[in-house]
């Protein structure tokens, strides 16, 4: 299959329906995560002392998870590129690499949660920690959903079926990455 690489935008009518639907899903997710982030930012402005609470989050583990998600975004876009060329083995391999990235992310998050809870920073300790667990927990649930979607799509794609779905699953995964790009400085760096 040859891809039409062009710098010109196409007409809206040529955009596949599935891709438009996925962009609408992403738009709704923007409001969900954006609403939480907006409230969190307003509270941070009102209560600057929350910075002392944020000092207890582990910046290096947060940075490691950012690296993992950026890399998994890289591998899923390679899976998409391979799908356009009909390279089914590469689609399967890159999809599995992405799922592995998701497992590493969740593993690191589990270590963080365990450490924080052992130090007494539970969801009920303060409003900061409520926001922390709700935002990162909601994000982690999206990571699990993305991993599941990629696995289901990859199972079909390795047989050459529904290859266009690799891109749809990839769009969702990239969005999960973009959300983390903003959560990382909000929760780990702004202290």
């Amino acid at each position, binding site marked *: 299959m040859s*891809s039409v690489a062009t710098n010109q935008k*196409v007409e809206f009518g040529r*955009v596949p329906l599935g891709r438009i639907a996925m962009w609408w899903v992403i738009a709704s997710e923007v409001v969900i995560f954006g*609403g939480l982030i907006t409230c969190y930012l*307003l509270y941070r402005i009102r209560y600057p002392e929350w910075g002392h609470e944020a000092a207890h989050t582990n910046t290096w583990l947060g940075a490691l998870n950012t690296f993992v998600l950026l890399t998994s975004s890289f591998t899923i876009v390679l899976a998409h590129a391979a799908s356009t060329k009909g390279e089914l083995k590469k689609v399967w391999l890159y999809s599995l690499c992405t799922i592995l990235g998701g497992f590493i992310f969740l593993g690191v998050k589990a270590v963080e949660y365990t450490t924080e809870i052992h130090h007494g920073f539970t969801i009920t300790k303060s409003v900061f920690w409520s926001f922390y667990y709700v935002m990162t927990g909601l994000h982690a649930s999206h990571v699990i959903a993305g991993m599941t979607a990629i696995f289901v799509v990859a199972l079909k794609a390795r047989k050459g079926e529904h290859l*266009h779905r690799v891109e749809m699953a990839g769009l969702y995964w990239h969005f999960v990455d973009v959300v983390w*790009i903003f959560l990382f400085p909000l929760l780990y760096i702004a202290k």
Partner: protein
Amino acid sequence: MSDHQQQNGHEDYHGHPNYFVIWAVLVVILGISLGLGYLGNHTLAVTLIFALAFVKAFLVLANFMHLRWEPKAVTAIIIFSMIVLGYVFLGVYPDIVPIERIIAQ
């Protein structure tokens, strides 16, 4: 559109940039963000770190999500969600920021 594309309902009209270079740039920006954490001026550091977060998000959206090849109507979907988010902001702002502070402003 080829038969294969028609079978899959898949028309790959966008280009494929050098994804490795984009990934490398993203990792370098992440490194810079971490380095900025050690900057003496805290306000400047946080401002720059958030500016870099927007750059990272833009790079992912434009290249990995191929938004720069999509028609403006697709970008409009995301802008629409940002407008809705603006209403959320206006709705919760008076609840979080004390009314005395709003009047004082």
